[in-house]
């Protein structure tokens, strides 16, 4: 396993783990949305890394590769990058909606903590406080 692979997959796994842990354990709305965004970043990074080919350049032809010849063998896979571009835009749309719902929650309750929306044995006491 090369160093690059270790660094890339390591950061993806770390981001995914942090995102899932944050979604499940945080009760602050901003932190929840932040965790969701971190998880999205991990997925996007994973998809882009699948298209990576070691030693090749960005999928743009220039003077070196020549516009007439086929650039096969010199550039990385452009398809995952195009798909991730779509995924980023959709992620942005969902984040925007989530944030405006958080604004509404704050305006009507005065807090960003999800106090009553939780489960577990200590839930009852929390609500009564």
């Amino acid at each position, binding site marked *: 396993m*090369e160093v*690059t*692979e270790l660094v*890339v*997959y390591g950061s*993806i*796994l*770390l981001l*995914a*783990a*942090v*995102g*899932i*842990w944050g979604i*499940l*354990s945080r009760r602050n709305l901003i932190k929840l949305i932040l965790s969701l965004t971190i998880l999205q970043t991990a997925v996007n990074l*994973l998809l882009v890394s*699948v*298209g*990576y*080919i*070691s*030693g090749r350049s*960005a*999928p*743009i*032809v*220039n003077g070196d590769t020549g*516009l007439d010849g*086929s*650039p*096969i*063998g010199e*550039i990385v*896979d*452009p*398809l995952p*990058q*195009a798909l991730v*571009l*779509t995924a*980023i*835009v*959709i992620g*942005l*749309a*969902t984040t*925007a*909606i989530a*944030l*405006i*719902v958080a*604004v*509404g929650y704050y*305006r*009507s309750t005065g807090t960003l903590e999800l106090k009553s929306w*939780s489960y*577990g044995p*200590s839930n009852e006491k*929390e609500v009564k406080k």
Partner: protein
Amino acid sequence: MMERYDIHRSIPAILLALLVAATIFYAFVEVGFGEAKVDEEGSVSNRFISNSTQETGSSNFVTAVVVNYRGFDTLGEVTVLFLASAGMGAIVSALPAGDKRKRPIPPSLILTAGTRLVLPLIILFGSYVFVHGHLSPGGGFQGGVIIASGLLLYLVIFPEWKAPHKALALSESLAGLSFAGIGIIGLAVGGIFLDNVISGLGEAGMLVSAGLIPLIYIAIGIKVGAEMTGLVARMKGGDA
């Protein structure tokens, strides 16, 4: 007691997170990081890389895929962004009024003068990015977001500024209409919706090339810039 409660919820969360991370690792360790997977004949990427410069005239393969081969998908993507913007507007209008007691600290002269100096440059750079989407990294979405980031800076420094929501909605609608209109030109001339009918125009690698791709990306850039500015201005609340 907050701490104990959080730990009580955190342990299953950590376990599940580690489980998911292990699953991802198990699934992708076989994929082969950095291996040349596109070189085989018949793969989709191979088809795009071999033919897209001749077919679309675009130097940027990602742009060729996003705007030309998957142009219909991008139209849907732009529609999702419009939906998010419209949905935010609908939610904001139903919200109770924001708390206006906290007055922001007035910004210093350096911030106001610097913002006035930098804002035109940011908008110029955003326009550069979306006009050159077929030649260099970037494109309509990226350029539009750069423009919106400049206006976010302006909104942070001048909180009293009221975003011209009507003008933003108008430019957004016109840009969206021109994207669909370009698609209908393709349908009328080439027989395929969003067909790149003038792809042979100009020399590949020059600004005037790639046919309809730069026009579509300019429309997307204006649309995304206007939409994102509207989103950010609505997020500020109050008058929005």
